[in-house]
């Protein structure tokens, strides 16, 4: 399981709609909305899945930027098998 937190910046008057839309995405939990920023966490099985999920956020109308803040990936099962 990979856990990330993201700040999504939106166009001023679209914050609520975007927050709703985000909340509908699988693995996404909306924690806080302030001004034009939305704080969410994303949980996915692997880093790849996490990336795939996140990259589609900008397609949502009103989203200006998607900023990854924190990512814990030590429990990504696909990474455990890789050795230097």
């Amino acid at each position: 399981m990979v856990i990330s937190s993201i700040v999504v910046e939106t166009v001023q008057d679209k914050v609520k709609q975007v927050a709703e839309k985000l909340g509908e995405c699988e693995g996404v939990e909306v924690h806080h909305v302030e001004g034009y920023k939305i704080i969410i966490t994303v949980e996915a099985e692997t880093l790849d899945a996490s990336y795939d999920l996140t990259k589609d956020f900008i397609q949502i109308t009103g989203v200006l930027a998607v900023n990854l803040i924190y990512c814990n990936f030590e429990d990504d099962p696909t990474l455990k098998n890789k050795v230097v």
Partner: protein
Amino acid sequence: MELSRRSLLKAAAVSFALAAAGCSSSKSSSTSAKQDSAVQPDEWKKAVCRFCGTGCGVLCGVKDGKLVATIGDPDNGSNKGLNCVKGYYLGKIMYGEDRLTKPLIRDDKTTKGSMDGFREATWDEALDLVAQKLKEAHAKDKSRIAFWGSGQMAITEGYIMSKFWKAGLLCNNIDPNARLCMASAVVAFMNVFQTDEPAGSYSDLDEADVFVTWGANMAEAHPVLYSRLTARKVSNKGVRHYDITTLRTRTSETADKVLLFKPQTDLAIANAICNYIIQNKLYDEKFIHDHVQFKAGTENLSHAYEDGYDASEIGQKGGDVWNIEFAEFAKMMSKYTLEYVSELSGVPASDIEELAKEFANPNRKVLSLWTMGVNQHTRGTWMNHNIYNIHFLVGKIAKPGCGPFSLTGQPSACGTAREVGLFSHRLPADLVVNNPQHRRFTEAVWDLPEGYLDPIETPGFHTVKIFRELSKGNIDFLWTASNNWAVSMPNLTRFLAKKPEYQGVIDGFIVVNEVYPTLSAQYADVVLPAAMWVEREGQFGNAERRTAVFEKCVEPMGEAKWDGWIFVQVAKRVLADVKIGDKPAFDVLFGFVWDKEKDDFVGDARKTNRLLFEEYRIFSNPELKPAAQAINKNTEGKFESGLKMENKQLAPYDEYLSHNGMTWPVREVNGQWLETKWRFSYGKQEEGYDQIGVETYGDVGLANDVSFYKSADKKPSAVFRPYEEPAESPDEEYPFWFCTGRFLEHWHSGSMTRRVPELNRALPEALLDMNREDCNKLGIKNGDKVKVISRHGEFEIKVSTAGRTQPNPGMVFAPFFAEETLINLAVHDYYCPLSKEPDYKKTCVRIEKV
């Protein structure tokens, strides 16, 4: 994962994000920190990028005599501060390890084909040798010498060469590499408008509603213009992009519709659009009435398979045109129904119809953009005509955001090759050698006796002819500068003596002005090390007619010299005993700029360039010289009409420096010099319209407030041009179309960009883009080496299915920047009969696994 740990991590994640979102960005950008640690320049100078025809302004940071920074110039109207990756790495192109710094002489011709066999020489020895060989060859037979110039030469360099070769040597065997890129566009401009270069401005990209790219991969070849296109599209709903192409490219990414057509059928598609507009009565009657005359021309031109094509009957008559009525034009066009053209081209009829409707919609501003797909075409001139025909029928030209925009490939194909007239048939400022009035005007500007230029009334050899004759041993002396013909000419198997009957390149005496040991240098007898880019002061004129100055920033490396200095030094020797009238020829031509005692130019780079430019601009400012003005205005009535030379008016040199480049015609209004963004368009000069041009020579109050004052009867010509077959078509023996072109990271033959580590690592090899189905059928995998074989030659290359371009089955693509993968060994040299520009896009090949 334990629930508690997970929630803990999540909580931590959220708190981090809250903190990050809450605090204002106190974190300074690490990238700028990196830049702080990089070297900071002492001073910034103005320049222009020396790569594509976009002509981005560049600011050069100089420290301790070295170039340490290049960034976009925010005050240059062409690019507004942006460059593409090549432009940003300009600072490194001069510092490749193997930069040529001393003149080189090859004594043994059998060593040609490598850099071995050269010995270093002094400038005096090299110049004396070059001059001696040139003088001898010229005295023996003028048709056996040639100069191959470039759309990458600075304006003043081209001007010096034009005077030396045309007036000094009275020879028309002088042609630029722009023959390989823009000739079709030029000939069409002259046929249609009787004046060269587009009417619009780059600001059209910010205002169009519909973009149509005709065989143009702008994302890779005109990247900064492409960013303006995408910016316009992204910020405005309803803006559409139609990509008319033979294979999908990066440019196709933004397209709403990609019209994939069978090669050569672009001619038919354009006609289908015209036919649709005519049949549905969607044309602009008033515009046609006020501004358009209709013509037809010679058809069934066949192809220049044989060297004698130009002299043959069809070769001689190919350019003929005659007036017809609109009704006949419509009748000729009626064959090009949507069904017929859809069948011929493979493009769905509905797509062609959709595009036709966009053109016909009076509320949609349509911008057509094209370069090599249209120009490097065995009917390239015709294809240019066909695009103009559409725009004429709907009156969409010379308006903001709206019109046919012929994009230029090289940085100064406009400014130098075309405007200075470095062609076998031209003189400066759109004048031509075979027009007596044009010769009289040139004589007046250059202080030559009347009639002096009559010996050059017959055009000389165009590019392909120069190299075909060279290959047969009919050129004794060839001099080239700012190009790399051994990589970029087509049919290299013939021109590089790979065939026993074509050994001319070995036998001829070849002089190459060069900066790196390129393949062309390897076939030279003498290599003269030239100053690169901002190692000299120069000027370029870009695709939107913007003339801009690049300042000298650093001294040339080693003993390298400015091309202008090299040309004058040779001229001084060659013309030593030649007189023009009763004065020494050299004094007449170069006395104003050369100091004999110093054996150098009269002043520094700035002063010298200013002197040359100020004389050059007399051509478009004839009031500066009464004798010239008399011919321009036809005051003595000796000719049919005046010349309207002011239609390309250039400003005084220093205006270009203070304005970071200006688009001509530049007009003086109340002591200020104002540029023109839209030629032929009536409106306020201060806002960029061609007020003075229209008021002086045109008519006010016509349809769309335009007046084509330079065209015959002020009416540009819509010439009907049919679809005709390409020179080769796929068959059993050669079943693939082989298309060639350029990618973003490398310029042309890569002689500069491949010596920049970053650019080289971004695109290290030339690969053959192939369709996966074709690969499977031939048992080829991504990365396999194959042989590409045509009727003309062959080469080896690795295959790629990565999709940089995505050809359909039956087509393959490769870029030409890699000397070790010399794709032009296989490309045919058949050319457009009107423009003499070869077709690099449609050689037929077969592919064999190695």
